[in-house]
């Protein structure tokens, strides 16, 4: 008699039990996957995420990859792509004619102009004429260490005459960009990776996903925490160590971007002296006050632009900039290894 009653109870409990099992089973079955791409922005891109299967992860990762490739092609100043007007097209038409471009170029240039104003000109995407001299010298110097050279100082000064961001004419209605100075060129290296990483993170969010971590050449964006709720741990490299895998501290990240620029990246050596890739618009040379600067913000593009700005600013000006920027924190590591934290940075440090 009780057995049939128990059966009834069992059936009435089944849906609840099934739900419970499913909840537990589903949460338990998400696995962490990771993949790396080397063809975006001439740097290393890593995508990590929790998914129910390798196939589910691969589908989303490939979506992120193709989105990043689109941004890469649009912002590329070295290569042409069939049927695409990119920044190289804009540069080639400097002083000649406006170029009709994708909205993602207009948006980036408008943002870059905002950052120029916000940082007192310390982030200037119209500095291509100067940066190209450094780029060529660096590429040559890396390939030929024994005959590495510095860009000619007079040539740098002459190039700097053609870096007025006011000569970048963005026409939103016509969707065109025109460089009115024929000697001018754009180089969006200081903002493009952060901008694209932010767009990719937004795309993951728009797909209703959480528990993903994107890193585009040091621009790290966490979409949500890890599966299970704990924060992603993003290591900040010890700039004094030759090893890229030794960390000075770790930052806990959930819906947060962590961007680090360091003098140990993209440098070359001339007569025993290292020259890194972040060029101060005022001196036209790399500034060696800091060996790395890290910025935290939910806004990836903002964080990227601010690392460049802080590299080129003294501590008091940089600190004032960070403290007046809502939601942004910074860690400066001076050339002698000492660390300077913005007021709220330590709240993010993993103990």
């Amino acid at each position: 008699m009780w057995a049939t009653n128990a059966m009834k109870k069992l059936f009435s409990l089944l849906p609840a039990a099934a739900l419970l099992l499913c909840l537990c089973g589903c949460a338990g079955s998400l696995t962490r996957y990771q993949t790396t791409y080397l063809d975006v922005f001439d740097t290393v891109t890593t995508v990590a995420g929790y998914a129910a299967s390798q196939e589910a992860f691969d589908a989303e990762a490939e979506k992120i990859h193709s989105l990043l490739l689109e941004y890469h092609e649009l912002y590329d100043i070295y290569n042409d792509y069939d049927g695409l007007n990119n920044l190289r097209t804009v540069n080639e038409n400097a002083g000649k004619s406006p170029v009709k471009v994708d909205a993602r170029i207009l948006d980036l240039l408008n943002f870059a102009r905002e950052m120029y104003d916000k940082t007192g000109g310390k982030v200037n995407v119209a500095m291509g004429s100067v940066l190209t001299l450094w780029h060529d010298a660096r590429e040559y110097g890396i390939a030929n260490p024994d005959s590495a050279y510095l860009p000619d100082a007079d040539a740098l000064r002459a190039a700097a005459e053609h870096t007025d961001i006011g000569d970048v004419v963005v026409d939103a209605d016509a969707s065109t960009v025109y460089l009115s100075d024929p000697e001018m060129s754009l180089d969006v290296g200081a903002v493009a990776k952060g901008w694209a990483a932010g767009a990719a993170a937004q795309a993951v969010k728009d797909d209703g996903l959480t528990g993903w971590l994107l890193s585009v050449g040091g621009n790290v964006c966490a979409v949500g925490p890890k599966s299970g709720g704990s924060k992603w741990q993003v290591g900040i490299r010890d700039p004094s160590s030759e090893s890229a895998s030794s960390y000075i501290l770790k930052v806990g990240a959930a819906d947060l971007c962590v961007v680090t620029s360091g003098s140990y990246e993209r440098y070359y050596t001339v007569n025993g002296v290292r020259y890194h890739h972040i060029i101060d618009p005022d001196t036209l040379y790399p500034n060696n006050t800091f060996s790395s600067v890290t910025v935290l913000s939910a806004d990836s593009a903002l964080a990227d632009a601010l690392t460049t700005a802080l590299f080129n600013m003294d501590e008091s000006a940089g600190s004032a900039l960070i403290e007046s920027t809502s939601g942004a924190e910074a860690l400066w590591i001076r050339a002698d290894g000492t660390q300077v934290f913005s007021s709220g940075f330590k709240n993010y440090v993993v103990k």
Partner: protein
Amino acid sequence: MDDKKRHLKNDILLVCILLAAAAAALLLPRLFRRSGADLVADVTVDGAEYARLPLSENAELEIDTDGGGTNVLVVENGEAYMKSANCANQVCVGTGRISAEGELIVCLPHKVVVTIETEG
């Protein structure tokens, strides 16, 4: 009265069994994954699988890539590092030793990626 009590007892038992089953479904894969987790250094060249070296065995691997690029990967005492490479920037050699899941060594000029993974 006695019957009702017994029903209640059985119901409680049933719920307990279901909860235990649910807990087992949640925990077993984790326990299994942890105990069975063997770390490997996964090596890809231009996105294609090249080799998988268990971190539990010391080894030295010469990675030959298109155009004469060569990297030498060493696995030693549960860590992997790039011993040498004939690339210009030597970033891979400078990366040092990696041993935790998700850590990377990348040689961009030779399109070589070494990732620490859990053997599935």
